[in-house]
């Protein structure tokens, strides 16, 4: 009883403090100097219609490389955790598949999910969204297939190849800008093009497509690891 009263009192204090703290901010106006700079110079300097993409890939491109590396480390960590000796002998058990409608419906919906995810990361520099969101949507499409067919699995070798090529594209473009064109990593060396067209903003769409493939393959790998942990039998534990 005393514990619950203490909880309630502390919760009350925290909520009051938070409300007072956030009430002090004038919301929606008085942007910071950095934000004003980005909003004013984004189109002239990067050519991207979506300011968020301009910030994450152009002004803060190196941070995004760090973010991608963190995701890679997380996916590798999951893979290492679930790796068991004799991985090749691990077999997916003959599962009881879900009913007919789920199986056929997932096969019909899957290409549309792929299309939607690709749309989101290809148009990352024009509309809201980008590589991370599109990749996560594609991975959720793979998740749907896993739920409908628990006994099947994606080809992990191909996933690794796609992931490696995408990461190489990102770093290679950055190094190309560093050594040949400008004097900074991820220098935007391609022509800016016309605003609001698909071929605009220089290297930003290429990088977002690479990030989309990378994120999708990493999340699909994580889903595959978790799913195999639930349905696989065999291998030395």
């Amino acid at each position, binding site marked *: 009883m005393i514990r619950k009263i203490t909880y309630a009192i502390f919760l009350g204090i925290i909520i009051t403090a938070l409300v007072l703290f956030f009430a002090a901010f004038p919301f929606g106006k008085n942007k910071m100097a950095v934000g004003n700079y980005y909003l004013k110079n984004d189109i002239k300097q990067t050519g991207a219609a979506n300011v968020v993409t301009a910030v994450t890939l152009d002004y803060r491109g190196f941070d995004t490389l760090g973010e991608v590396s963190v995701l890679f480390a997380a996916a590798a960590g999951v893979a290492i955790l679930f790796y068991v000796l004799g991985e090749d002998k691990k077999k997916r058990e003959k599962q009881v598949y879900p009913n007919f409608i789920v199986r056929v419906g997932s096969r019909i919906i899957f290409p549309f999910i792929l299309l939607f995810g690709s749309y989101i990361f290809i148009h990352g520099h024009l509309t809201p969204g980008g590589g*991370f*969101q599109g990749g*996560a*949507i594609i991975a959720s499409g793979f*998740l749907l297939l896993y*739920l409908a067919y628990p006994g099947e699995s994606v080809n992990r070798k191909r996933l690794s190849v796609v992931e490696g090529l995408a990461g190489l594209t990102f770093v290679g473009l950055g190094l190309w800008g560093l050594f040949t064109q400008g004097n900074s990593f991820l220098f935007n060396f391609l022509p800016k093009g016309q605003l609001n067209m698909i071929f605009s903003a220089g290297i930003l769409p290429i990088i977002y497509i690479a990030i989309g493939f990378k994120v999708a393959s990493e999340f699909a790998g994580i889903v595959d690891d*978790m*799913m195999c942990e*639930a349905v696989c039998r065999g291998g030395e534990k």
Partner: protein
Amino acid sequence: MILYASWILIILMIILAVLSVQFKDLIAAVVAMGAVSLIISLLFLFLQAPDVAMAEASIGAALTMAIYIIVVRKTERREK
């Protein structure tokens, strides 16, 4: 209008967050957690941050929930 809607959503979100801790049935707890993520993504949309809303909806509400459900299926469904 959107202000009142977001108030209702915030209250619903707090209730769902408390419920996801209190539920003894772990699948129900995971579903409540996914609903919290979905409501957060709606609130991001109201705050005109569609980029973040998309990431939250696809990762928080879809992938994380699926991974938790797989874990619950592998272990035990009811909390002791």
